[in-house]
């Protein structure tokens, strides 16, 4: 074959197949982008008209005039439920990560890692069903506390695994330097290693909170929902996802509007946290690299 033969353009069925392949790739990209675009478009378009002062400050009004009411009880409830979950899951996750990254070697550490991985792949409704039986059914009522516990089951492994990765990125020199100065190991970890990984740990926490904010199934089975403001963690409590769920299933268009408003606020909060986490982690990686 001559050199000219090699350089000849591809023709016939080979060319058609290649063009089809390239076209198919672009189609996939177009479908993904278009889907995201359409979802974002509708959430913003329908949600924005629901937002008002009442929306953020009032409890639901009568079904005849839903637009006069708001979902303040959902915001407060989400705060309480996710707050309880964070207060428990973040320290537990952090200390689990410390064990895995600083002390853990051998079988036990692998077992803990595997457990975290397994918990991450368990459907979230199962966490809800678990807390439903051990807390709700056992104590006889739905509550914000039970909702928080269901979210702990989901957040703990996320914080643990994500934080472990960050701790492992902290240079060994820092630990050795600190130990050489005579600092005991626990102080080295808590005062030198953890602060050095600060931004990365914050990323892990933000991801976990973002996930918890959007969860519906686990808190449906545990916190149930409520039409009124409730600040007692031992009583049924509303949350934004629960409100969207119950409003969307009514036949009242005004309540659908409220649901879209809730979806917009929820989406913004979750995206801000996720994108913030992404930006932070990119910056952290650059700093450590």
């Amino acid at each position: 074959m001559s050199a000219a033969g090699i350089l000849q353009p591809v023709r016939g069925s080979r060319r058609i197949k290649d063009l089809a392949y390239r076209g198919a790739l672009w189609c996939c990209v177009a479908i993904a982008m278009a889907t995201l675009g359409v979802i974002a478009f509708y959430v913003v378009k329908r949600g924005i008209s629901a937002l008002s002062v009442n929306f953020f400050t009032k409890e639901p009004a009568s079904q005849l005039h839903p637009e006069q009411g708001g979902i303040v009880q959902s915001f407060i409830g989400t705060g309480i439920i996710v707050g309880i979950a964070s207060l428990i899951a973040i320290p537990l996750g952090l200390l689990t990560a410390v064990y895995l990254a600083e002390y853990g070697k051998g079988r036990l550490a692998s077992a803990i890692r595997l457990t975290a991985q397994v918990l991450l792949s368990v459907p979230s409704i199962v966490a809800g069903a678990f807390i439903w039986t051990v807390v709700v059914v056992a104590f006889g009522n739905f509550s914000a506390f039970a909702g928080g516990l269901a979210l702990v089951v989901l957040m703990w492994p996320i914080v643990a695994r994500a934080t472990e990765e960050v701790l492992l990125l902290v240079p060994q020199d820092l630990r050795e330097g600190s130990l050489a100065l005579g600092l005991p190991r626990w102080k080295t970890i808590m005062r030198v290693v953890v602060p050095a990984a600060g931004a990365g740990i914050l990323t892990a926490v933000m991801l976990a909170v973002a996930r918890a904010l959007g969860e519906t199934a686990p808190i449906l089975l545990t916190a149930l929902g409520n039409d009124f403001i409730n600040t007692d963690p031992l009583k049924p409590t509303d949350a934004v996802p629960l409100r969207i769920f119950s409003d969307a299933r009514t036949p009242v268009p005004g309540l659908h509007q409220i649901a879209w408003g809730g979806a917009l606020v929820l989406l913004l909060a979750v995206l801000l946290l996720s994108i913030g986490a992404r930006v932070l982690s990119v910056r952290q990686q650059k700093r450590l690299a």
Partner: protein
Amino acid sequence: MSSAVGSDALAGLGASEPKARRARFIDRGFRWVTLLIGVGLIALLIYMLVDLTAGGWRTFSRFGFGFFTGTTWNPVRGREQFGALPFIFGTLVTSLLAVLIAVPISVGLALFLNQVRGLLANPLAVFIDILAAIPSIVYGLWGLFVLKPFLDSTVEPFLIATVGKVPVIGVFFRGKAQGPDMLTAGVILAIMIVPIITAVSREVIAVVPRDLREAALALGATRWESVRVAVLPYARNGIVGATMLGLGRALGETIAVTMVIGNVPKIGWSLLQPGATIPSWIASSFREASSVGLHRSALLALAVTLVIWSLILALVSRILVRKTAEQLGEPGEDEPVSVARLGTAG
């Protein structure tokens, strides 16, 4: 701070015996606390599995294997009958449909992200991450008020009029276009699992040595030929693994499905009929079951079934993805945590 360092340093050197002992005690104590918490995570998982199984035991022992093959679900006291087949059927149909739609798109996206290093690749990766971060409830709301009406008014009448008339395949597309159905649930699930399948496929494709592709291209292969000959055969196991992971996610997805599927425990071949999945049924009947022992036990038995499926799928997927990485000489590292990995909120 400096004085603390000083005294600890001296303690470490054994200058002051009681202080040194205390310091060592605290140090060991801290280690034990972290260890206990780590073990606590294992205990939590075991407790969860044992508790759910114990809760479901009444149902398993009363109905035996009939729980998986029965088609009647009747919680009325005295006439209780719990058969999970309609939910198992609904879960499998919607999830398989989702995988069928999502896998080609995801593999396309993964190939695109691996080959195109242009202006578009980075924003595309961000977009896919955003798709992964959208909460399930938002997908559900959108599915109910935007996707369902759209499918009902355009796609489904079209399917009924064309594919519905074809023998054999036609049975999947009979019935009326209106109303909740399994097709809508499958499409919503497909959108929700694209990010995870894309993320894992992308990692697997990224470990295929570039030399192979470049050698193929140097020999005059077109892009498609280079992918077919030098990428897909190596990444195949990993892509199957990614698919399993996506299937696992689809099986357990609750709220979005609950909102569009209609929650009717019925078995029928047509995708245009309402159905119910295991999670959607748990979510829609847990309230009545809270105070009734056997009904509650039946729901927990459903949850156990779900856990077993998702654990098997996660395990198989992990083995396949690792095998691919090892075959290609990459260290079989643990999966990195990313937004897509952490999954869509259920």
